[in-house]
């Protein structure tokens, strides 16, 4: 069987949907964050597949930047979650309700 562009795209769309579902249903801030990372990686997969399809390196370069940006996001995000944990001894966002969620 030949793995075509569409196979990659279906996989990317699936991963992306799993990420979205994770963000919407999970209540642990760290898991939500991991789900967002999953979404980013689904995008990376789509970019690489498209880049190969077009024979263009632009998509791969975009992937590098997404990886770097995602790392920066993780760094900032974990720092914020650590501060949250120090305050409330929990990372459950249902317990975070000073501001209505």
């Amino acid at each position, binding site marked *: 069987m030949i793995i075509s562009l569409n196979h990659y*795209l279906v996989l*990317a769309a699936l991963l*992306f949907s799993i*990420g*979205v579902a994770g*963000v919407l249903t999970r209540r642990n*801030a760290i898991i*939500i*964050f991991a789900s*967002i990372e999953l*979404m*980013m990686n*689904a*995008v990376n997969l*789509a*970019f690489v597949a*498209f880049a190969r*399809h*077009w024979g*263009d390196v*632009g*998509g791969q*370069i*975009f992937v590098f*930047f*997404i990886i770097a*940006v995602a790392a*920066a*996001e993780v760094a*900032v*995000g974990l*720092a*914020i*979650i650590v*501060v*949250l944990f120090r*305050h*409330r001894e929990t990372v459950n*966002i249902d317990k*975070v309700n*000073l*501001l*209505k*969620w």
Partner: protein
Amino acid sequence: MDLSRFNLITIATPLVLGAGVLLVMLVDLLSGRANRRPAQLAALAVVLAAAAVCLATWNTGGVSFFGQVSGDGFASFFNLIFLAVAFLVILAGPAYLERNAIHFGEYYSLVLVSVMGMAFMAAGTNLLVIFLGLETMSLALYVLAGFNPARQSSNEASLKYLLLGSFATGFLVFGIALVYGQIGSTDLARFSAYLAGAGDPFAGYMGAGVALLLIGLTFKMAVVPFHFWSPDVYDGAPTVVSAFMSAAPKAAAFAAALRIFYAPAESLGLPWERILWILAALTMTVGNLSALNQASIKRMLAYSSVAHAGYLLLGILAGNELGAAGILFYLASYVFMNVGAFTVAWMVNRRGEGRYDLGDFAQLGFRRPLLAAMMSVFMLGLIGIPPLAGFFGKLYVFTAAVQAGYVWLVVIAVLNSAVSVFYYLRVMVIMYMRENEALKDVDRIPATFAAVAACALMVILLGLIPGSVLDVARAAVASMP
């Protein structure tokens, strides 16, 4: 070695800001533990230098770096808006930060980083650059929102902003990926050319791509239904940061939206106009109705900024030159009104951070007549009362929408403006008519007062010479490649 492909003039302003960030960080490191003054002065100097560079290179850049950025008048116009906001919050900020014992030097470098990101959003002619600018801006804002680590609501605001913001970013990049999949490039010139040339512009991956792109951008603009983060985040964040967040990033998001959608909208009319029509109508209605019964001035201003995003969408929807230039003018006046109003809000707040109440304004008209007068200017400007800048912003955007045939939407917008009179005027009524002897006097803070006065002057000045500013905005729009 062909250096002309790397024309540094095109990104001169963000470059100065980037170097300035390092400078401010260094100055702050070397200036000892207790003294934040050098960092603030360095940051002000950097902003002024960047503004000087921006004016000196106004519309001289052209497209460079392999079509990635364009240093045209459009970018210069927006840079000036961002820099003005940064200057004001850096000037006004220390008093607030001292009051809450959170005066860290990082405030200044983070504001500058964020503005650098915005500058790249306004200059980007490639989705990659716009994405990077947006992320640079957002990451700094996430940290700024949680700038008061001792206060839970600030921390939660930053967590909420971060989670929802990166969620929206996920949609944005997936949209970019799909657009790339359809046209094989992230270049905006190719994007517009494709949309203009294709029989069905939204065949294949393009429809989903553009839709996801719109979701990502409307989140940053706080357009209904992606607005729900903004009242909570503006409310929870330190108020100087709210002033910054409600003004500059919104302008940056609209800059990016114009970069991406203006050329296609002009050439083929927006096929997604129906969605935008509904979004605009919903945004202004929901924003205004929610603002009506807010007891906290911060939440009221947050919902009002949602409503203004709705008015601004009319300019995008109109898709003509006046619409785009109107957005530029609108944003130029809006940022001063919002920064001014938020700054006055924390100046008069005497209940402590986290407890903002409209009652704080009681008697302000008699105790601090000048401050009250300036607050009135901001409120009247936000309503859109004729001699002030806010009126002309609305006038231009609404006129453009009528020209493009969106009469009903403009009717909705005008009705909404009428509704908004109620909650803006309520602040003035409280200032001049309500009795409350128990309140302490408002602190006199010269630097912050100067910043508010500058905002008020700009709102009046832009209202006095709207025509010439609009001409500059028109030229800026025309200079987009």
